């Protein structure tokens, strides 16, 4: 990218843009205008984020830019942007049919930007305390947004999310304190003990037992946010009951951000020779999530909850890949994460429109979608086919890589993973068959959908399945190497 001047520092923009936008949006009452402002702010963030690639790595007291988080930030900004477009049309429709009133939505866009701010901050943070704060900020914002419909179910889901999230917060904090305690004898008191880059330099000398306990807490604490089974309970309901843009962002982004935190600490632990290997723990949780979510998919009746479980499954796959480690698996994990974010948010976009046009989220009441709404239906088919890991999509590529790279190292684990994937596949295709095909039911009214975000996401997923640009590959490989 050539247009940003070399001395331009996008980091403040990435952080400030959502923050300022949030403040502005909080005072703007007009729904329509704020929707556009939201899109605009997200676009600015996206532009700033994409200029990160030109920046050298650097680490300050609070902000860190390295190869790893650039990937996350870029993905974050992109999906944040597309979701803001989707959100504009989705929310517009909700207001039209009166399911949401502008009063409910008063702070919706502001919260959206706050959430983006939280996530960007978490990703940029070099300070593990700051990261913790940022993730909690993002979580609490989404809690409010999940409850925005103020139906009984929505509030209950938000409440569940809130309580489980709070416990997760507490656990993660304890883990953070423990890391600091482990670091204190070596790097001394004060800020240094919380700066990730400093920790990384000295971690080899930290007390391994303390690190072990810390990791357990961090894994469970942030793992709750990732939605790994058996810590997943908030996730399906939050996805199902919140507005769909939020489901998309939750699945596409927030889970990633939490995973990013886990990854950071995994790196930390891996650098200490005497601590337990963090990989197997992650792989274990990942595997449990895959198999558990795969079975859970079969009994789902709500389409958004269904895809939420699919998110659990995929987060499990990603955690598994990073847990297995090694260049290939890490590469595959990164790829899978990217692909999952794009695909799953794409699916949620189309599911959102589907639920709107059919007036229901019950799977049993949505049938023959390719007949009644061909474009929407086939987009959904493509999305599900992609998320199920069929070619020609990037998910296929990453799943193949994960399974095969695992297979070279731990054949039995790979078999179990494949088992989980197959079970999940069966559920996905079963539900897809019911929703997209069969004798159509429900409304045939044309849908005013914003196809652009869906198409953009799915096109990217498709393109990645066929051809990964060498630049991207090189970048991912660099990151994967760093992930050990």
């Amino acid at each position, binding site marked *: 990218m050539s247009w940003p001047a070399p001395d331009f520092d996008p980091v403040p923009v990435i952080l400030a843009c959502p923050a300022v936008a949030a403040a502005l949006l909080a005072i703007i009452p007009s729904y329509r205008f704020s929707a556009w402002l939201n899109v605009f702010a997200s676009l600015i963030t996206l532009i700033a984020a994409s200029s990160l690639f030109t920046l050298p790595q650097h680490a300050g007291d609070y902000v860190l830019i390295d190869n790893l988080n650039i990937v996350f930030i870029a993905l974050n900004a992109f999906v944040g942007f597309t979701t803001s477009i989707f959100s504009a049309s989705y929310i517009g429709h909700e207001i039209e049919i009166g399911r949401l009133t502008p009063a409910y939505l008063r702070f919706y866009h502001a919260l959206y930007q706050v959430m983006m701010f939280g996530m960007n901050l978490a990703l940029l943070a070099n300070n593990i305390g700051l990261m913790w704060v940022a993730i909690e900020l993002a979580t609490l914002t989404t809690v409010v947004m999940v409850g925005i419909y103020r139906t009984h179910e929505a509030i209950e889901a938000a409440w569940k999310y809130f309580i489980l999230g709070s416990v997760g917060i507490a656990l993660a904090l304890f883990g953070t304190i423990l890391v600091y305690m482990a670091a204190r004898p070596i790097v001394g008191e004060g800020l240094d003990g919380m700066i990730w880059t400093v920790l990384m330099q000295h971690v080899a000398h930290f007390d391994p037992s303390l690190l072990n306990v810390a990791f357990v807490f961090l894994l469970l604490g942030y793992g709750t946010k990732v939605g790994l089974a058996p810590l997943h309970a908030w996730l399906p309901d939050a996805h199902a009951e919140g507005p769909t843009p939020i489901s998309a962002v939750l699945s596409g982004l927030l889970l990633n951000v939490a995973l990013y935190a886990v990854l950071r600490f995994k790196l930390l632990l891996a650098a200490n020779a005497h601590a337990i290997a963090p990989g197997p723990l992650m792989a274990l949780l990942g595997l449990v999530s895959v198999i558990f979510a795969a079975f859970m998919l079969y*009994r789902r009746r709500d389409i958004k909850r269904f895809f939420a479980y699919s998110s659990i499954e995929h987060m499990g796959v990603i955690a598994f890949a990073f847990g297995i480690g090694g260049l290939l698996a890490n590469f595959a994990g990164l790829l899978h994460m990217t692909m999952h974010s794009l695909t799953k948010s794409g699916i949620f976009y189309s599911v959102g429109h589907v639920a709107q046009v059919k007036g229901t989220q019950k799977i049993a009441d949505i049938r023959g979608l390719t007949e009644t709404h061909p474009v929407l239906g086939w987009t959904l088919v493509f999305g599900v086919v992609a998320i199920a890991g069929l070619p020609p999509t990037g998910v296929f590529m990453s799943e193949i890589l994960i399974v095969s790279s695992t297979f070279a190292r731990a054949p039995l684990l790979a078999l179990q993973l494949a088992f989980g994937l197959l079970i999940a596949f069966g559920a996905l295709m079963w539900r897809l068959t019911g929703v997209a095909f069969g004798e159509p039911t429900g409304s045939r009214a044309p849908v005013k959908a914003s196809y652009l975000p869906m198409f953009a996401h799915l096109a990217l997923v498709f393109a990645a399945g066929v051809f990964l640009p060498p630049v991207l590959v090189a970048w991912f490989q660099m990151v994967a190497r760093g992930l050990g």
Partner: protein
Amino acid sequence: MHGASFDIAHLLAGALVLVSFMLLYQDRLYALLNVFALHAVVLAASVAWQAYVQDAPHLYVTVAIALVLKAGIIPIALHNMVRRMGIHREIETVGGIGATMLAGMGLVALSMMVMLRVTAGADPLAREDLAFALAVILLGLLIMVTRRNAVSQIVGFMSLENGLILAAAGANGMPLVVEISIAFSVLIALIVIGVFLFRIRERFDTVDVHALDRFRGERL
């Protein structure tokens, strides 16, 4: 750090664990709230001692929060709530008080086992402190898990959080301790408000008594 200060810190942290056990032992809501106030007081004392020992005046903010909010406002608010919403005064437990006490013992032993593996080279204060903090956290979780009333679950969460504050305060020179304790206080306040707002009488799980019979989410 010399012997006496170490002993006092140790004593206070141990006292916090003991009060956690007392929380576990209660089967009346009012008594539980009273004991929780005591918990907060002990925490305040412990943090104050740390502030004094570490010469970290900002920790007094935390002490103040603990005393005012946790030992004062919140228990009183919960008292009111229990009275006004007509919540059962008795605490429904899972598995009985005795069993949970035993489990609590096990948890304390576990936290000792886990923490004492930390090499002796590490700061002994931190090590002991952390063991107690971990015990408090685990006991708090145990309360949340074995008590069915919303109020006692809140109490469990708050005692868990007290354990966190204890650990954070014990970590010499840790930045953001105060901020964290404030953030947590806000969190707890939100939970309490949520309980009020959603009229959660009995449990966390149902936010509205009228909704008890309605299907939730999936159940058809």
